């Protein structure tokens, strides 16, 4: 089991751990953290596939990983804004005692 292979298996495991956790929790922030962990797992798979343990990794797969990172941060940013809005909406609903028939 060369080094890249260990990280390849690690990547697969981390991705599925993140996915399982995301699907089993109700709390939005925890879902987003799980999403990022799954994202990190996919990056591990990508870069591990592109490296031979010595020398620089395959530039194409590095580029794909870079693109993956930027997309993950963009999605996380949007998700967190939504979390803030959802909490604000829940707070408003509780504050005015469900006046407006939340639902």
């Amino acid at each position: 089991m060369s080094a890249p292979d260990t990280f390849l298996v690690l990547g697969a495991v981390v991705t599925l751990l993140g996915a399982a956790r995301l699907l089993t929790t109700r709390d939005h922030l925890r879902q987003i953290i799980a999403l990022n962990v799954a994202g990190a797992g996919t990056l591990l798979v990508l870069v591990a596939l592109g490296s031979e343990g010595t020398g620089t990794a395959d530039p194409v797969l590095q580029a794909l990983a870079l693109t993956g990172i930027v997309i993950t941060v963009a999605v996380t940013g949007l998700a967190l804004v939504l979390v803030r809005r959802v909490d604000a909406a829940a707070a408003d609903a509780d504050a005015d005692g469900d006046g407006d028939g939340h639902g």
Partner: protein
Amino acid sequence: MTALLDVLLAAAVLVAAVATLLAPRAGSGVLLFLVLGLLLVLVWARLGAPDVALAEAAIASGATGALLVSAVTGRRPPAEPDRARRSWAALLPLGAAAAAGALLGGVLVRARRDGAGPGRLGDLAREADGVVSHPVTTVLLDLRALDTLLEIAVLTAAVLAALALHRDGTLAAVALPADTRPVLRGFVHLAVPLVLLLVGWFLVAGSSRPGGAFQAGALLAGAALLLALTGRRDLVPTGRWLPPAVVVGLAGFLALAGGTRLLAGTWLALAPPWGAAAVLALEAVLVVAIGAGLAALVLAARPDRRVAAPTPPADAAPAPDRQAPR
């Protein structure tokens, strides 16, 4: 010897990941995620992917970390703390997922071994004579320029979607109380010029060695946030100038694509004489866009001034983190 280090590193990453997922409170989850990020920087260095290591440090741990920390502070603790960690119900799916992951890993390893051979994409990319010497930047901005264009579009779309949730589409209404503690202001006065120098370095270095627009953009966002949080709001475009700043990167890329089509005949085709200059100009525009975009995302995740101002309702227990500076 190095095999032992790899196993240790892999184990550390696994433990950090599981800890992040099962952290009892969201706050500790975020911190553990930052630890995971640092460990991953080591992994990318180990696997010989310096560009990804830099990006991981600057964006995946830096920007995402800032986003998550900002989201955790000032958030009402959820009504019932997530007791999943202790109940077996949570560990079962994770166990199953780990087993499935191991299987998937096995398939991946065998596929890599079967697929190994000469003439793989990476070798072709190394020999390709792009306009820039550094292979990763060549792939990003020359060989697969369309991917990067779409990726910038994703970032721009996410920021626009985030801004759309604010009242007038800009962040003017976001609460930004200035933190005027002298030590922090002193640090900011020292750190920001240094960071801007680093941004310039990454921008220029990108064409010949690991670095480039994404990492530089993240640093620029960090500098902008430091300024915004310590009262110097004028430097950070949160009013009318925010949408143009966010959209300039995508606009620049589209202009380049259109320009190459009109001048050089094929979309996004970079030819040697003016190619390097075009890449540099594009990267400069991307730095501004990514910096503004990430800063906007962090600021957009903060509550509006309207919510922060009202006195807390009488019945709500004064939550401990409400006094933290926001």
